[in-house]
């Protein structure tokens, strides 16, 4: 048994070595700013894995492994190619195997019951299931072991579907390969020891980044569950992008009313801390123990969580809604308008905020609303057990010249149009730049569904192939609004497909038709053309190769062109680079699984809500925000976070402090060199950050570090088992 080495004194911060700067990454700071009440990896947690490894693993039914092997037909997916009965026969002959069975569907109730019965009646204490990919049912079968009373990690899975029956056709070779894989799994199973999940005490607090509808919804929800909530908003006002809207489809509710309702719920709840004008600069830590560094502009406002703060007196707080600008205190509106009314709108609607490390494209856009200088900003540090990212989106800003944008004053975005329309006086003729508006063209899919070779890539270097989901309905709603108020104004809708998909959306399409709007259909490769008219009544002519008119060219004279601009993901700055949040090909934040885990990111403890994950309308954003909130609650409700035990552990007596593991580890902070009381530096693993990739194991010269559940010895025994098959394994 390993000698117990004195643990390093608690309270000492692990010192991280300098890591070579990788391309695109900032070199890590050698020291962190002092934090109060920080949780170091080895404080207050359950016995660390090295201690577990040092103990004898308690095994049901004695130390001798009694292995049960269960082979699944998978309906026919496996059995149609592999003779599973033969495989089971071979498995039964292996040393340690006391039961080898097959079942039509191992994951079904009777299949699971067969395993449970063997555990109870035959004293099976190690289980091997050969079936589909472990991604599907590994957890299911672990659940069987747990219910049957033995440690769920005394389980090994062999994939004989994706890796054998679905990829090989020859039955004999497939059977031999399956047999070999089972042999290897049995070999590993024999060496498995019981493991306990890693438990980390969790901070009962959540930080929500983003004060748009999604962030507000999540904050309101979480505060009511007893967790501490901090809401961080970059702008000086709440409401996000919904604030630039007039009415929300399809119920024609004023955006102001919805935002006010959501925001008031947050403001009235004295358990919520609110920081406006604040951005996340850095995040350290891991699930249960995140530390966020925020930076707040001088104009920003903080409402502290304070029961003595006047509860339910939102009016007394002096917050109000300003149309098209958001919900905030009076000062926020003054502070945001150094150059007059338009600057705030420009800040709200100007997209193309440069991604981290990139320079802004072109030089034509007015400066986006970045706060000037760091010196005048305040720094705030917040601890949280989980983070909800609700950073929303930006409106696509067409490059100069796209459909005449930026060149012809008559070409505006839908966001501008909505505001313009709301400002037109009732009755009479609407005017734009003091000229009467008699006809308006609306162009769909601007900045979305782009085509290679037709559209220029944006600042990200890619074109936007995705659909922005809400623009069709929003445009139709605007057309209906325009025609209802000014029936004499002609409206032309130039679309690719009308994607009025939601409840109540199709009605806008019908109403637009019935109001006399004319629809023309263009194909992605041949978008409409917008040109200044030479010597005509109308200042602008729009022409379109129209699929509804047998591909003929159709042109119309208009006084305004409205571009239905799409959504682009907002820049999440320090949050993204600290946490390495993955983005999809479309640039939006990438959830773990669109159906099974739609609000979780691959970084444990970080949830995603709203349009930063994909274009959404307000309903969908609020639903996803509540979903993210309940997931955060689920993570933190028990006071600790439980992670899978497949983490690295160091045999302290073998470790000579070379430090190669730290250099190789791709997860910052997962391993660190620490000073032990005996003066020797040794590697210490932080189980919360370790992902179990095993890179450290590969480079350790003394084999001092190994993975729980995936030991070197296990690999050796598996390789031996495969080689013992004598080269029968299918190539």
């Amino acid at each position, binding site marked *: 048994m390993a000698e117990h080495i004195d643990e390093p004194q608690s309270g000492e911060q692990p010192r991280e070595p300098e890591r070579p700067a990788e391309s695109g990454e900032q070199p890590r700071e050698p020291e962190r700013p002092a934090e109060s009440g920080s949780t170091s990896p080895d404080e207050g947690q359950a016995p660390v894995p090295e201690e577990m490894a040092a103990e004898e693993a308690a095994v049901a039914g004695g130390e001798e492994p009694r292995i049960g092997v269960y082979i699944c037909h998978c*309906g*026919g*997916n496996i059995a149609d190619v592999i003779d599973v009965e033969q495989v089971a026969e071979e498995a039964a002959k292996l040393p340690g195997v006391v039961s080898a069975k097959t079942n039509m*569907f191992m*994951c*079904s*109730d*009777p299949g699971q019951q067969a395993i449970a019965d063997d555990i109870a009646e035959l004293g099976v204490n190690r289980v091997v299931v050969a079936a589909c990919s472990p991604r599907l049912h590994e957890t*299911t079968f672990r*659940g069987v072991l747990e*219910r049957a009373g033995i440690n769920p990690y005394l389980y090994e899975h062999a994939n004989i579907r994706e890796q054998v029956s679905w990829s090989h056709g020859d039955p004999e070779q497939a059977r031999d390969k399956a047999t070999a894989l089972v042999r290897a799994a049995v070999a590993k199973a024999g060496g498995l020891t019981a493991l306990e999940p890693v438990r980390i005490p969790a901070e009962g607090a959540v930080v929500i980044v983003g004060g748009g*509808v999604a962030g507000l*919804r999540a904050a309101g*929800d979480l*505060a*009511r*569950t007893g967790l501490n909530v901090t809401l961080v908003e970059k702008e000086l006002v709440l409401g996000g992008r919904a604030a630039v809207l007039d009415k*929300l489809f399809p*119920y024609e509710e004023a955006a102001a009313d*919805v935002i006010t*309702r*959501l925001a008031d719920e947050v403001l009235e709840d004295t358990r919520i801390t609110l920081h406006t004008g604040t951005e996340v600069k850095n995040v350290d830590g891991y699930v249960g123990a995140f530390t966020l560094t925020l930076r707040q502009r001088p104009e920003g406002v903080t409402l502290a969580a304070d029961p003595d703060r006047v509860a339910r007196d939102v009016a007394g707080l002096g917050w109000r809604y300003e149309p098209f600008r958001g919900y905030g205190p009076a000062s926020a509106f003054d502070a945001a308008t150094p150059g007059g009314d338009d600057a705030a709108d420009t800040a709200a609607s100007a997209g193309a905020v440069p991604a981290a490390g990139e320079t802004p494209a072109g030089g034509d856009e007015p400066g986006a609303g970045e706060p000037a200088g760091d010196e005048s900003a305040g720094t705030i540090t917040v601890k949280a057990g989980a983070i909800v990212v609700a950073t929303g989106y930006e409106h696509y800003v067409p490059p100069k010249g796209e459909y005449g944008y930026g060149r012809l004053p008559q070409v505006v975005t839908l966001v501008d149009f909505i505001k313009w329309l709301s400002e037109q006086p009732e009755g009479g003729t609407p005017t734009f730049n003091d000229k009467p508006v008699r006809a308006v063209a609306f162009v769909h899919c601007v900045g979305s*569904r782009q085509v290679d070779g037709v559209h220029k890539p944006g600042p990200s270097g890619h074109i936007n*192939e*995705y*659909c922005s*989901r809400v623009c069709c309905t929003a445009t139709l709603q605007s057309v209906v609004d325009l025609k209802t108020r000014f029936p004499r104004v002609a409206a032309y809708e130039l679309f690719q*497909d*009308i*994607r*009025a*998909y*939601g*409840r109540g959306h*199709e009605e806008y399409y*019908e109403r637009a038709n019935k109001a006399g709007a004319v629809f023309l*259909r263009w194909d992605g490769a041949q978008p409409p053309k917008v040109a200044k008219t030479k010597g005509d009544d109308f200042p602008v002519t729009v022409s379109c190769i129209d*699929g509804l008119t*047998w*591909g003929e060219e159709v042109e119309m004279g208009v006084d305004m062109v409205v571009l239905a601009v799409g959504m682009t993901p907002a820049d999440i700055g320090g949050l993204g680079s600290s946490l390495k949040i993955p983005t*999809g*090909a*479309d640039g*939006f934040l990438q959830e773990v699984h669109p*159906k*099974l885990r*739609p609000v979780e990111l691959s970084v444990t403890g970080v949830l995603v809500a709203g349009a930063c*994950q994909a274009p959404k309308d*307000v*309903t969908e954003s*609020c*639903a*996803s*925000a*509540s*979903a*993210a909130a*309940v*997931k955060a*609650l689920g993570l933190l409700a028990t006071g600790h976070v439980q992670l899978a035990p497949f983490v690295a552990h160091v045999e302290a007596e073998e470790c000579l402090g070379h430090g190669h593991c730290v250099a190789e580890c791709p997860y910052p902070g997962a391993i660190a060199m620490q000073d032990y009381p005996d003066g020797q530096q040794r590697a210490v693993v932080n189980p919360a950050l370790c992902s179990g990739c095993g890179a450290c194991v590969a480079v350790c010269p003394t084999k001092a570090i190994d993975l729980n559940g995936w030991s070197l010895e296990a690999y050796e025994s598996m390789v031996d088992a495969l080689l013992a098959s004598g080269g029968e394994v299918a190539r």
Partner: protein
Amino acid sequence: MAAAAHHRDITIHTYSEVEDLQPTENGYTATVRRKARSVDEVACIGCRQCEYACPVEVPDEFQGGFTSRKAAYVPFTNAIPQVALIDKESCTLCGACANVCPKDCIVYDQQDQLIPIEVEHVVLATGWELTSASSKAQYGGDRIANVISPLQMERLLAPHGPYGRVLRPADGKDPASVAWVQCAGSRDKTLGVPWCSRVCCMYAIKQAMLLSGALPFADLTIYYMDIRAFGKGYEEFYRSAKAMGIEFVKAKVGRLEEAADRSVNVHIERIDERGQAETRTHDMVVLSLGMAPVPDTRELLPLDLGEDGFVDVPHPKDAPCRTSLPHVTAAGTVTGPMDIVDTIAEASAAAMEICREGDRG
């Protein structure tokens, strides 16, 4: 399914319906009618001997009516619980199943049970129904054998489907040409369904993509009015479907007729530069039917319904799952057509609504 079935805090009642919900001070008293399976659920091990012995065959609804099942049967391959059920309407009480059952768990005279349950909260997740295939006479009124519903096509494509491959129903031929008729049950006032059912464009493209793998030489055509590939990754999927050679034709199908060789003639007007009235023939046609509300929601709870029959909520933008009744949330397609992605988000949102309710300030 499996995760919910084995969770220690979740009790599942299958083959059961909520008959009544009485409001109480803290929530509701639910009366659940657990219909009689005629089988002792606890004893049954799902061995299927009863199924093998049963002499009665009836069309299998789960397999789209393409194959048959027995009167005593396990509903489908991975049913949870994996327990047998006797369809009383078809059972002839011959006793064959009872003779072979190794656990002696056939109970012919089993009665429905009425189970009262006290709850603090009700989640309405009663889902949707497929619009009717027969309501449009121009599409054959459900009498053309090779015109099938999308759920039937799902079964043909499924690994545990009726035939193990895609065959056309009338004569078992390998289809060389398959077509989908979009908006066959939606966006059509003559059917009484003016709304868009939201999922049909994507499921048709999915089915076509699966079929392009299963039948690489088949001609696959989707006739549509608009392709509503609006979600994350959907437009990209649509583009890859086009790249796979699936033909997308903008045309609302006007009429379907059966040809002499059981093929289906499709009458359209193409809406493109070559647009003209055409008749095209396919071996098989799938009607992309839509989502309709389940009809009996109001019998249980006095909820507001929209004109379309789906449930309305007071704040559909900021609280889509919170109904007008305290202690009642709604999740999924009961509030309107939606796909799995949005349904799952709503399900979690409904859970959050319940967690919120505990807060008193």
